């Protein structure tokens, strides 16, 4: 048994999520494990379809009807959410864990005023009366940096810009002071200029409240600034995890290395993205051995036969590559 630091808030252990029925079933997430300590930020990185959102949905009990957790544990504040009935996990949503979604344009209900939607949290979850809930809503809307909060509560979502709407979504997620915030690509759908402001806001809120942050993102630039540790996902599994600086400077997995070199740096002409060749595998027909081997520049015969385990590299890092020790010693990518 692995011993965990006493302040571990969330601990995901060998999680597997299956989609679909008998014939067309596939595992969207497989053998995913990570820990998140109180106040810590962990970033989940990976290409589209690698299972980041599904992992978040599993934690929040938001998996769609055709998905199920087939094995593993999700221990949150000492309780295994997988074994809890869904309604109990639902109780933790909002109060103990909050979630920010990718697309603020669809995350708010178009037919209710924003005040209504935020005050609903205080009314339903905390039993405040209409007036007190409205005041509390004004307070959080103010806290996420929306000017003239009081008056804006009466407006409908379509009357706000994308960045403002994402602030409102964040306001809802943090309104009841959860200990864990899951942000699933919170800036992807926004203008570049607004992205930085939203990340800034999330960081400030985290600093004030001491909540933990599970940040899901494509944007490696964002990760470097805000995160403590990263976990890189590929084809439903974690292929590398470690402190952000170590992983950035010396990736131990060829896939991570590929991701790093795809960050457009300011000196290079834009558009010159050294993306990883090929496409992520179809989850229904993943390659044998290491799922990354068909796209890997370092692949050797053993890679197509034997799947590398996620093994420790020193005391804080892990990587799932047969040749991780060699990869980590390669020259830095940039």
């Amino acid at each position, binding site marked *: 048994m692995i011993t965990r630091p006493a302040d571990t808030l969330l601990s995901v252990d060998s999680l597997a999520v299956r989609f679909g029925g008998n014939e067309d079933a596939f595992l969207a997430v497989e053998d995913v494990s990570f820990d998140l300590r109180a106040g810590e930020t962990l970033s989940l990185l990976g290409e589209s379809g690698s299972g980041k959102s599904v992992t978040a949905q599993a934690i929040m009990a938001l998996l769609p009807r055709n998905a199920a957790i087939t094995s593993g544990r999700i221990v949150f504040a000492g309780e295994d959410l997988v074994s809890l009935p869904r309604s109990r996990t639902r109780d933790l949503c909002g109060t103990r864990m909050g979630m920010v979604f990718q697309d603020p344009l669809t995350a708010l*209900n*178009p037919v*209710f005023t924003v005040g209504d939607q935020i005050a609903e949290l205080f009314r339903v979850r905390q039993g405040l009366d209409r007036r007190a809930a409205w005041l509390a809503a004004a307070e959080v809307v103010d806290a996420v940096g929306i000017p003239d909060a009081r008056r804006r509560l009466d407006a409908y979502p379509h009357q706000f810009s994308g960045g403002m709407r994402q602030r409102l979504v964040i306001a809802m997620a943090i309104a009841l002071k959860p200990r864990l915030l899951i942000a699933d690509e919170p800036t992807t759908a926004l203008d570049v200029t607004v992205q930085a402001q939203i990340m800034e806001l999330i960081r400030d809120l985290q600093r004030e409240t001491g909540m933990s942050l599970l940040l899901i993102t494509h944007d490696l630039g964002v990760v470097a600034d805000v995160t403590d540790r990263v976990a890189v996902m590929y084809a439903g599994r974690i292929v590398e995890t470690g402190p952000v600086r170590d992983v950035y400077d010396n990736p131990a997995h060829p896939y991570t290395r590929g991701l790093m070199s795809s960050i457009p740096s300011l000196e290079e002409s834009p558009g010159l993205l050294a993306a990883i060749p090929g496409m992520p595998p179809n989850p229904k027909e993943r390659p044998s051995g290491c799922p990354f081997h068909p796209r890997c520049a370092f692949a050797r015969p053993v890679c197509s036969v034997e799947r590398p385990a996620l093994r420790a590299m020193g005391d804080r890092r892990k990587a799932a590559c047969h040749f991780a020790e060699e990869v980590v010693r390669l020259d830095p990518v940039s």
Partner: protein
Amino acid sequence: MTRYLGYRILSSLVVILGAATIIFVAIRAVPGDPALVVLGPSATPEQVAALRTEYGLDGSLLGQYMHFLARMATFDFGSSFRLGMPATQAISQAFTATLSLALAALCIALMIGFPLGILCALRPNGWSDRIISSLSMTGQALPSFWVGIMLVMIFSRMLRILPSGGAETPEAILMPAVTLALPLLSIIVRLVRSGLLEVLGEGYVQTARAKGLREPRVVGRHALRNMLIPVVTVVGLELGGLLGGAVIVETVFAWPGLGRLLIDSIAARDYSVVQACVVVLVLGFVSINLIVDLLYGYLDPRVRVGS
């Protein structure tokens, strides 16, 4: 908003005027002189001419038309040749009967259709969904007159618990209302089902769940309210069909409504009543559309004009 409303009312008036003109021409294009129909084949030419003068049928067609329009503006349609009373008086009772039939059918369709549609959407492709969905397909395909006759056979002939027609007892409305409701009910079931399924996949439903709201509140408040927008639109359009369906159902069940009055009056070439019936039906139709449009703006803040 006021401008929009003004525009809608104006265009409704144009529709009513158009319908009134068409029925004015159409009923006169049907062969058969109303005076002859009333007096019978043995009438003398003097009697016929006198009656034609009495009912204002002796002037030019254009003159009659102008006269008709001028009186219609004050909701006066002249008097009935057949019933010997003002047409408005003749249709007012029939109008009440049709209105109560249509409202009863609407209530049945909504009160049964919504819960069944929601039930289907909560467990798509479950056994209850399959049964209800296929029943609703059937319900929409069955012709009203056949359903009506079947109901009469079962409840009036075999079980003898409901009257086969007329409107003498309060429970007499049950069978015609159910018959009239059936197609609309089937449409509502399928609209609610597909609308709710679509809405349940939306981001704001996930947000509501992430707020820790219980499923009944997520569905009943956040999803349902959005699902109402497309449903109200289609139901509004179908209400027009309900008025049309009432004509058939009233004939089957001898329900003393506008539909039956219309058919009897056409047979008797009772121009004034035919014109009054059609104008009232069209008026009902455009009012429903106007109400639906306003409701739509109320339900969806994004289309609210002037906000």
